[in-house]
């Protein structure tokens, strides 16, 4: 027995080795490439190949064939989804967004749609950061084009004072100013989030303060004509709110203006400051615009402080914290519309942060129309509603060599196949004992022997 053991071990290894080689050869891509070659106009073949390429991390190849599939059938959801995933993996956020939006229109899996909706929120932020990165990378080129004097940017205000808990007001007040300046149809005001993304990119607020020179640099990069350089100085219960206008192309700083008021009257101070900024910018408001500027998002300082902390958390990418701060703000002042909107956006962003390419794929599940299409790619069988030669072949095979229990082996596990006709039972059919009828009793078969 002892001498037999090594021999048996060798035999088992000899069997296992080529078998392991065969396992490595179970890559579906060659099979799917052959299917595409045989039927280049088949959406199923292209889709399956694209999905297989994506899973093999051949993102550029995946995008090419998936785009072909989408051109042939713009309503093909899985092709749109995987085209989006491939484009995103390639860093092409614009096309990724377009493909994802296409999936939202034609896709069929509800859970995947909600994942994609969240993903689009995250992509918006990613795109903004990418744009900021690109602007800094091409700074010389971007800065060479002067911004329009009517394009105004407002970086976060600079806070100084003993009560550091008030520091987040520098973002809240800046946002209020942006909103108010935006009331005028004569000005184009750079969005706060865009400005912040650029600020983060050039580390404008390394010490949470805006350096004037860096602010001008940011203004150039964002192609603003003028910049509002703001400050908040706390002194006891007083707050001094100041602003100066910087001409971005020349870096010339205009005459500063200041408003002093009690902390409780900070919103009145902001309105007064904004009106002075309008004057300094040479903008005359219409009565309707003036009415809009006079509107206050809230009169509750605590709510506004919570809101400002939410902005800070949001800028840091701490979306769950941001949502909590915005929730506090809207609880303290249920009429604080901006807090409500920011709360929802932060919740979406928090959800979006959980969404990954893998989670999007797994949201398709293992059953269902689209899950079946992805499974087809995994198994190398491009079969689905648009046909595919494999489906045709399998139907033919099932008919020419049917299983005796075909409805079980085939139909019952493939819900998109039609019920099968009955199979012949030769003895009962030949002897006609298969007839059902109302008469009772047995059918006696008489056999005459020779």
């Amino acid at each position, binding site marked *: 027995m002892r001498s037999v053991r090594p021999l048996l071990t060798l035999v088992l290894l000899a069997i296992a080795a080529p078998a392991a080689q065969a396992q490595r050869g179970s890559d579906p891509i060659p099979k799917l490439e052959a299917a595409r070659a045989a039927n280049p106009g088949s959406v199923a073949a292209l889709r399956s190949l694209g999905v297989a390429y994506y899973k093999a991390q051949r993102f550029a190849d995946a995008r090419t064939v998936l785009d072909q599939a989408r051109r042939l059938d713009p309503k093909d959801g899985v092709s749109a989804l995987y085209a989006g995933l491939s484009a995103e993996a390639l860093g092409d956020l614009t096309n990724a967004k377009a493909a994802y939006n296409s999936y939202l229109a034609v896709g069929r899996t509800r859970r995947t749609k909600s994942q994609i909706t969240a993903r689009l929120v995250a992509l918006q932020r990613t795109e903004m950061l990418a744009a900021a990165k690109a602007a800094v990378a091409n700074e010389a080129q971007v800065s060479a084009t002067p911004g329009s004097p009517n394009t105004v940017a407002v970086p976060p205000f600079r806070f100084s004072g003993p009560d550091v808990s008030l520091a987040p007001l520098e973002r809240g007040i800046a946002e209020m100013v942006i909103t108010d300046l935006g009331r005028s149809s004569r000005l184009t005001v750079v969005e706060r989030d865009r400005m912040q993304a650029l600020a983060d990119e050039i580390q404008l607020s390394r010490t949470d303060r805006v350096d004037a020179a860096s602010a001008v640099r940011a203004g150039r990069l964002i192609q603003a004509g003028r910049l509002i350089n703001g400050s908040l100085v706390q002194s006891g219960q007083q707050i001094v709110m100041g602003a100066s206008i910087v001409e971005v192309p020349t870096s010339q700083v205009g005459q500063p203006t200041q408003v002093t008021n009690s902390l409780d009257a900070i919103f009145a101070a902001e309105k007064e400051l904004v009106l002075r900024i309008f004057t300094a910018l040479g903008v005359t408001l219409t009565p309707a615009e003036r009415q809009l500027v006079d509107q206050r998002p809230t009169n509750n300082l605590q709510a506004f402080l919570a809101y400002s902390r939410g902005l800070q958390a949001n800028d840091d990418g701490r979306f769950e914290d941001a949502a909590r701060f915005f929730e506090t703000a809207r609880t303290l002042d249920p009429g604080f519309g901006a807090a409500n909107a920011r709360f929802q956006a932060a919740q979406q962003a928090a959800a979006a942060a959980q969404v990954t390419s893998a989670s999007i794929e797994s949201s398709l599940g293992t059953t269902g129309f689209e899950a079946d299409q992805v499974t087809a790619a995994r198994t190398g069988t491009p079969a689905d509603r648009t046909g595919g030669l*494999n489906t045709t072949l399998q139907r033919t095979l099932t008919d020419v060599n049917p299983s005796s229990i075909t409805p079980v082996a085939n139909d019952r596990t493939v819900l998109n196949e039609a019920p099968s006709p009955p199979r012949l039972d030769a003895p009962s059919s030949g002897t006609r004992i298969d007839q059902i009828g109302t008469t009772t009793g047995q059918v006696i078969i008489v056999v005459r022997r020779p």
Partner: protein
Amino acid sequence: MRRLLALTLLSVPTLVGAQGLQDAAVIVAPHFTQYNIGSGAAKKSITQMAIPLVFVLPFTDRFSVDVTTAYATSDVKFGDSTASSLNGLTDTQIRANLSFGGDFLILTAGVNIPTGQYTVPEEDQVAAGQIGNDFLNYPISSMGNGFAGTGGIAIARPVGSWNIGAGASFRKSTRFTPFSVQSSDFRFTPADEYRVRLGADRPVGSGQVSLGLSYSAFGADATDSTTYSTGDRITATGMWMVPVGDGANLYLSGWNLYRLKGQQLAGDAPSENVANLNAALSFSAGEVLIQPSVEGRLWQVDGARSGQLFNLGARVRFAAGRFSIFPAAGYSFGTIWSSLDPGGTDVTGMRGSLTIRFN
């Protein structure tokens, strides 16, 4: 010896995975089917409980084998008393498929291993016959058909915007003894069968249409002293799948089985036609796919109305880990007619199944 056994056991998963058997599947599918014909004392109930078992073994990308067998119990009752009962293992079918040229050409071969019940005693022949009825279409139509072999070929090619599939096969059966009659064996050799199939499918709008036509030519079934002919069979199938929004698909499908005139013991076997139309709607509710359906079936013998049956059913599919689970249930009602019973007799039925696929 133990170490050797342990080594062998450890090697099995490697072998299984290595040979492509990582994609192997096992399907077990308990089925219950019952039809009641007539009522009161004249009522005939045909009940089948079956547990089919299917192993799908893809050894490599190109070579796969499936093995199918079942355990089935079939009863026929007249009134409340069981008149005929059959139970046991059915035949075991082993099919092997070898694909060539990008999978669009397949050579197929199969053997029918006679593991089923043979030489059915006289008192149980009613059950054996009733489950083979084409109109009622039982999942297990036969407990055994003797040793047989099938060889065939299937090919698919694109032609314009159509995919065309064509296939042919030949089945050779050997003599066996299906029944015992008056204490003697009834020896039977099923006829050779030649089958050809032509199918076509193509996308239509956002949906798909598929059509199929097959012709089965049979020689003569031979017994000890005489020959029968079940009659050649022409089967047409068709399906139209239409997406109806929000992931739902409507399937309109049908099949028609036409059996040409044949020869039976007492004379000519009349022609027979069974036509079936089915409409099913598939939609997802979360991870669960639901497919309610309605089905109508019409049976004619020698051109005369012989039966009609309506089926209401639903199939469901969901996954649990590596299991795919397909519960299904249905209710049937209809009428059968004969020359002796022109007024017709009511038929009701129900069926349920729980198909579980593991891979």
